[in-house]
């Protein structure tokens, strides 16, 4: 357990940061009743691909994703690694832009968007500067300080819940045609590719990752259900960030602070900073492999400046949603293709070894 602690914590933190912002409104918009079904399907798909991915990585001990793909051949690189690279880049852009918008909306109404984006990018760049190992260790330190705070507010948010809103239970299958349901998959696919990049630094045991994936299930379910159980489907579908509204309405009279929303959201934002720096680190690793002439640190600065300027090209939220939707197709491709391909090549490699012996 202790050897994989850093990896497990990073896995937990990145998923928690992603879940509580956009996921509830996507699921609530995708169906009217029986929300448990879309959530469970998503979780099942996630755990399945996670398992395949890790099993495949197991066949290549000590190697990270880049070396595996380049070991297979140029075809694999072009078909798989380049989309992954593109996917990482777009995801970073969307995340930085969306979360700066949310921060401006919720805490700092007068601060211009570019200042918040600048701060987010500077901090993420600093964390990513020293490599994967720093990101993993920072994750552990942040978890020690911010996870208890987050859990405290999460438990308090059950204050106003009316369990009868759970009914009607029977799910409605038209969520499968709803666009926002497929957009909600960013929560499931955004966080696990990093497992292919940690290998040289930290080893981990598979069962602990699966165990923590199962540990996340209540958070997935309740992030959608607490708004529904408190406000009802009709009201929750007209709110932009339902969980934030719920956090705002928690009434704790014995605490020194009036609005606990702030602490909850800020814990999540710190997890997101970690996520952004993780994705940046991975992007730099991939680029550095094929353009070794520029030092990785310089690449990182170029990447951050590029992201900062691109954020100016996305003037409002509608464009963010558009970008989100375009990225969804790329996301599904990466989500399905990468684990499966690694698994198949791993099996083939083992078979090949057996045959030569």
């Amino acid at each position, binding site marked *: 357990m202790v050897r994989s602690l850093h990896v497990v914590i990073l896995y937990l933190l990145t998923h928690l940061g992603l879940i509580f912002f956009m996921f509830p409104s996507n699921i609530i918009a995708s169906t009217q009743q029986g929300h448990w079904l879309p959530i469970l399907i998503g979780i099942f798909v996630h755990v399945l691909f996670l398992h395949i991915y890790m099993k495949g990585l197991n066949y290549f001990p000590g190697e990270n994703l880049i070396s595996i793909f380049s070991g297979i051949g140029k075809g694999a690189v072009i078909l798989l690694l380049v989309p992954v690279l593109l996917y990482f880049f777009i995801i970073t852009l969307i995340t930085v832009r969306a979360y700066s918008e949310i921060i401006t909306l919720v805490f700092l109404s007068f601060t211009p968007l570019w200042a918040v984006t600048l701060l987010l990018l500077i901090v993420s760049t600093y964390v990513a500067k020293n490599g994967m190992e720093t990101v993993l260790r920072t994750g552990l330190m*942040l978890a020690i300080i911010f996870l208890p705070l987050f859990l405290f507010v999460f438990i308090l948010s059950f204050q106003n819940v009316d369990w009868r809103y759970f009914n009607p239970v029977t799910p409605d299958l038209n969520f499968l045609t709803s666009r926002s349901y497929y957009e909600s998959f960013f929560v499931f696919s955004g966080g696990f590719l990093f497992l292919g990049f940690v290998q040289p630094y930290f080893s981990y045991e598979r069962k602990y990752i699966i165990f923590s994936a199962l540990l996340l299930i209540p958070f997935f379910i309740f992030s959608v259900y607490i708004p529904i159980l408190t406000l009802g489907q009709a009201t929750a579908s007209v709110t932009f960030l339902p969980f934030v509204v719920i956090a705002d309405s928690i009434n704790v009279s014995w605490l020194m602070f009036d609005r606990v929303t702030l602490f909850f959201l800020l814990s999540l934002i710190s997890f997101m900073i970690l996520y952004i720096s993780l994705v940046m680190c991975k992007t730099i690793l991939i680029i550095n492999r094929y353009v070794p002439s520029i030092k990785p640190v310089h690449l990182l600065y170029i990447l951050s400046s590029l992201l900062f300027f691109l954020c100016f090209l996305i003037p409002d939220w509608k464009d963010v949603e558009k970008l989100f939707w375009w990225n969804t197709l790329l996301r599904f491709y990466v989500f399905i293709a990468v684990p499966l391909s690694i698994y198949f090549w791993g099996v083939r490699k083992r078979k090949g070894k057996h045959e030569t012996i």
Partner: protein
Amino acid sequence: MDPIVKEIRSILGENNDFFLQRDIVADSAVVLLCLDTLVDMQKTRVVLQKLTHGLLSQGTSTQDIWNVIGERKEGSSHKVISAIKEGKLVINIEGTNRCILFEPVSKMLNRSIDVSTNENVIKGALNSFNENIEINIGLLRKQIVSSQLTVNTFSIGNDIPKSLAILYINGKVDTKIVEKVKSLIEKNKKMDISNIQGLSKMFEFSTWDTISKFNSTELPYNASQSLKRGRVVLFIDQLPFAIILPNLLWDMFIVENDRNLPQPLMIALRCLRVIGMLIALISPGLYVALVAVNPEVLQIEIALSVLQSREGVPYPAIVEVLIMLVILELILEAIVRLPKSIGPAITMVGGIILGQAIVEAKLVSNLLIIILAATTIGNSTLIGAQNFTSIRIYKYLNVILASIFGVFGLVTGFVIICAHMASINTFGKSYLHINTGRSEY
């Protein structure tokens, strides 16, 4: 006079404490050379005479006597001169170019083993390290009576040679670190080092680190425990503390004397220190954030009382906080420097100025004084003076970010500090490394 003596006299002769005298020892004519201020000549001559007399009466030949009483050097005056400078007595046998280096009775130039001045001990051994490197090594050997304890001494420096000693326990230490340390010392043997910054340069650490990669302690007990945990201890001659490499985050909170208390109390004390550090880092920033940028977080009664206390203060919260922090730093620094006679007076004046007058004059709100007191007290619960000062710098980052971005800036500042700590590593071992004995994080 022999040419070697003439040479030595030409180099050292200007010093008024240079001692040169002819004598008769073991039935031969000799010239005694030494530095008067380092050698107690009277006692040394008595000892020398007794020794040679005894050996002569047993029937040893003069040649053998010279070989027995000291080291023989011939020809080079360089080594003889350095021996004189270190405090040895040189016996030159007249008519030859040979010198014998004899270990004399030195003058009592060392402090006795005393209580430590900079570290407070609650329940534990009180003796502290000395300036003399040999006494220090001896104290450690008394603490760890083991054959695995290895001592390596080096003499470093070109113009001003100093002796540097490395100690480690063979089975427990990380061999990578020891090898790296030794190779770096060998490589940079010519550097003149007399302080920790010089040591950092020798080990090729970056000069702009805010967190020192060395830990230092004046207590042999602490040093011996860190040896047992696999660290390397260094001594520099004439510096009265042990330098421990590598420095880890947990050294701020964990001191070995805690283990003399029952375990639940020990855990509670350590948690208290962690809370102290968090308060020291966060409080001023939190004040600025809650008062200026995000006042919705406070309960209405607190908000109203803060409003009242800030009535009439001419400048914004951030300026107020920065001014008070700087004044506080000035007072802390002044208290360290002042002689013991004036010190208490200044503390009283500082307390009155900060506490009463500045609030009455409406220059600062009184809530801020409480916050600052909490910060200083929190800071002082940490162990080790150098840790104390690193944290003092980080809270400024938090204050500045909090004044622009509110609580979000505070969290960002905190993330930056965590990332900074996570990125430091000494010879491959991270700053955040935890050694639990069974497995390593």
